[in-house]
């Protein structure tokens, strides 16, 4: 119960990561104890409330890497040091702890939870990274993650196109038992197809519109699966059962829309 009450926190610092992504550092012990892949519901007083992954932890502080997209994230980007946020959670399940050689495949801000995973486990297991973005400037956390390969849609850096080509390459070159991925669903679907094909395990973080985060409202459903409670991280077996994965998503009204 305790984690469901909103905790009001002051922003400790703000850092520009890319032209559209900023990192907000916040003191929040319950989130700092979360597992990589779990998420928070973050209230931006005066604007909305959105789901966000923890992108790194420093003692009792967390980093939130926020991509500017629509109204709430735009308002979010205008916040400064000492402005307030409301946080509840952590919610959902996290990634399985990597124990064997693993590959992280992240696209856009989707790399955020993978960065936390990397931060937490890179010393305990062999972890390779493939990262993609729309353009060179949007590539996130390169210094820390030190990817074996990168891709950009405009070819401004690394391989032109999606992360799928470099991913395939890495899988054929180094030993990988499990792939961890997070990013746009089209990309995640592509990663899934490769994993099936190459017979490696997959831990994928999914994204749906989340209005409650506690498993009631149904806005985050994929088939009968509540991404907020039963996810957001899912394995291959689960993904195989979905009819809507990679094909259909739901709008704010619950309307089925092509991905």
């Amino acid at each position: 119960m305790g984690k469901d009450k909103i905790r009001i926190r002051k922003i400790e610092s703000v850092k520009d990561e890319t032209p559209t992504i900023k990192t907000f550092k916040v003191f929040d012990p319950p989130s700092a104890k979360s597992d990589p892949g779990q998420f928070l519901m973050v209230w931006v007083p005066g604007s909305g409330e959105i789901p966000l992954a923890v992108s790194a932890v420093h003692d009792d502080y967390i980093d939130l890497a926020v991509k500017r997209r629509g109204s709430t994230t735009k308002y979010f980007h205008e916040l400064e040091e000492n402005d307030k946020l409301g946080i509840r959670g952590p919610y959902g399940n996290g990634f399985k702890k990597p124990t064997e050689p693993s590959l992280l495949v992240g696209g856009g801000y989707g790399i955020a939870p993978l960065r936390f995973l990397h931060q937490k486990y890179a010393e305990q297991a062999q972890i390779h990274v493939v990262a993609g973005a729309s353009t060179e400037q949007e590539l996130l956390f390169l210094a820390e993650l030190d990817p074996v390969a990168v891709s950009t849609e405009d070819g401004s850096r690394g391989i032109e196109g999606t992360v799928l080509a470099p991913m395939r390459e890495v899988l054929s070159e180094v030993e990988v038992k499990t792939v961890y991925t997070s990013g746009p669903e089209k990309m995640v679907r592509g990663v899934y197809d490769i994993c099936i094909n190459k017979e490696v395990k997959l831990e994928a973080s999914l994204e749906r519109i989340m209005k409650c985060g506690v498993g009631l409202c149904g806005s985050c459903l994929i088939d009968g699966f509540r991404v907020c409670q039963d996810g957001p991280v899912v394995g291959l077996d689960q993904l195989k059962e979905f009819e809507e994965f990679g094909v259909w998503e739901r709008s704010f009204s619950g309307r089925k829309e092509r991905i």
Partner: protein
Amino acid sequence: MAEKKLLEVELAGLKMANPLILASGIMGTTPGGLNRVAREGAGGVTTKSLGPEPREGHPAPNVVKVTAGYLNAMGLPNPGVEEFASELKEVELEAAVFGSIFAHNDDEFRRVARVLEPTVDALELNLSCPHAESLGAAIGARPPLVEEIVSAVVREVNIPVFAKLTPNVSDITEIGRAAELAGADGVVAINTLPGMSIDVGTRRPILGNKSGGLSGPAIHPVAVKSVYDLYEALSIPIIGAGGIESGEDLVETLLAGANACQVGTAIADTGMSVFRELNSWLADYLDSHQMGLSELIGAAHDY
């Protein structure tokens, strides 16, 4: 097997494997969500309240945790009845399906009911929608409007029609009587109570819509009292709802006079296993008390 027979109920002609029904607005925005709950053991499932047009709902935050419950202000997001009905048509559910409707007047209610009828087993009329002409008060607080709407829908369709009552009135039996008079096959009680939560750190109401509806254990005693009073006043079946989380809560609501019970917020507090857990608690109770389910219903009125 024994448990199965023990828990069967018939409600206004509808047969259900057990008396537990998913409450409207919980996971019911998609047929996939309804199907999941049916598989988790609910005897019936209720759709999110559907209106004539698609609605995105209120701005977030949509849900706030309060002591012993949640406030929600979803704002009736729904893809519109046509869209929903066409999706629902494709799915075969292993539970009785209640189609919940909200609308602003009898004409709209009738129109939505007609579209929904072929794909559901019964209708539930959500009468808590604010009435356009006098903001603040809901349709469901005015007996003449309730009568008008219920009788319009009852005349329009050939499946059972349930009127869902708001507790936010000074005498819920007055509203229940209006629904019965108008031909409702049953009533559902209760919907959420009006509430608000203000954050003292920022001094702002938290919900995007400022205020919302209170559900969960906090409202359970109000639900029990409403069901009890309705049982004395009406002769049509009653579906109880409001903070049913434990086996005791369930039996208490049946003793007050409910023929079946809806479960909503318990899904957040207990998880999807709540349907199986409640059913098995109920079966054990009936077994150890050597009673049939039908003997339980309204038994508190013997005293």
